[in-house]
């Protein structure tokens, strides 16, 4: 088990206004660990995009865990959203596979932007491609139960030479 400097667990409501509240909360809490405020803002973007996808594509009428989890230490940042779904999100899994298969996160992001340029309705996947390219995160998704999916964005701060304010878990 990793020694996390930050472990944040917040409930997610199916209410669009809550996305910004949770995004800002993530930024503020990450700023207690990382001195670089710009870095925290970028990670906040990650939380925001994952939450927006959860609200757009989740089944909020169903039972199941609804939670934003943010964990961080000097080696690793994990931002995860768990939410109910009516069925396994095969389109999401296919999209993540497509992103992984792209020559680079930048190429995948550019591809998504081009699709949007050609068809304004085809915005699906742009947020995930943004997370992978702008925030340099690895994306994973898995069913936690029959009706709850977890979408996770994983980042290694050392890859950007971002040092934590703390070096030991409190």
């Amino acid at each position, binding site marked *: 088990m990793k020694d996390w400097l930050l472990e944040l667990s917040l409930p997610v409501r199916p209410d*669009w206004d809550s*996305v*910004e509240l949770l*995004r800002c909360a993530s930024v503020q809490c990450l700023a207690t660990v990382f001195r670089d405020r*710009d*870095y925290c*803002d*970028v990670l*906040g*973007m990650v939380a*925001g*995009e994952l939450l*927006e996808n959860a*609200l*757009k594509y989740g089944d909020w009428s169903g039972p199941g865990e609804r939670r934003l989890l943010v964990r961080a230490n000097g080696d690793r940042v994990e931002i995860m959203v768990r939410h109910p779904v009516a069925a396994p999100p095969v389109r999401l899994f296919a999209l993540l596979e497509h992103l992984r298969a792209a020559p680079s996160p*930048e190429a995948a*992001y*550019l591809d998504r*932007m*081009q699709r*949007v*340029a050609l068809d*304004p309705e085809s*915005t699906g996947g*742009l*947020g995930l491609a*943004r997370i992978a*390219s*702008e*925030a340099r995160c690895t994306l994973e998704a898995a069913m936690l139960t029959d009706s709850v999916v977890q979408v996770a964005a994983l980042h290694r701060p050392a890859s950007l030479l971002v040092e934590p304010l703390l070096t030991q878990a409190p």
Partner: protein
Amino acid sequence: MEPLQHETLTIHIEHQPGALIARWKGKSASREPGKVLTPWFDQLLQEASDRGARLQMHFEALEHFNSSTIAALIQLMNRARHEGVALTLVYDAGQKWQSLSFDALQRAVRVFDSSGGPGVQFMTSERR
């Protein structure tokens, strides 16, 4: 032309000789920002075209935008090119999130922009 006020986003308009300046402030994080932004952008482009003015959009005071807003900006860039309106996007290179997003848009424009029209330009300024 009236400023745009939508949820936590405000865009003010200034008229200068040969230019329409649109200054974004707040956050653009609504669920479908394009539904509000796109018709407003169309009005702005029409006014710029009627006046023979270039359109300059300033994002330095914007705190955050979501990927749905990025999609709306992509459509704006397309429309500006189609309408023959010179468009400049000005952002704060000192804010990392802006630098990352606008760098990506700039790369996208290089791929899209083959029409030979006025094109989209990007400029940076630093507020901090």
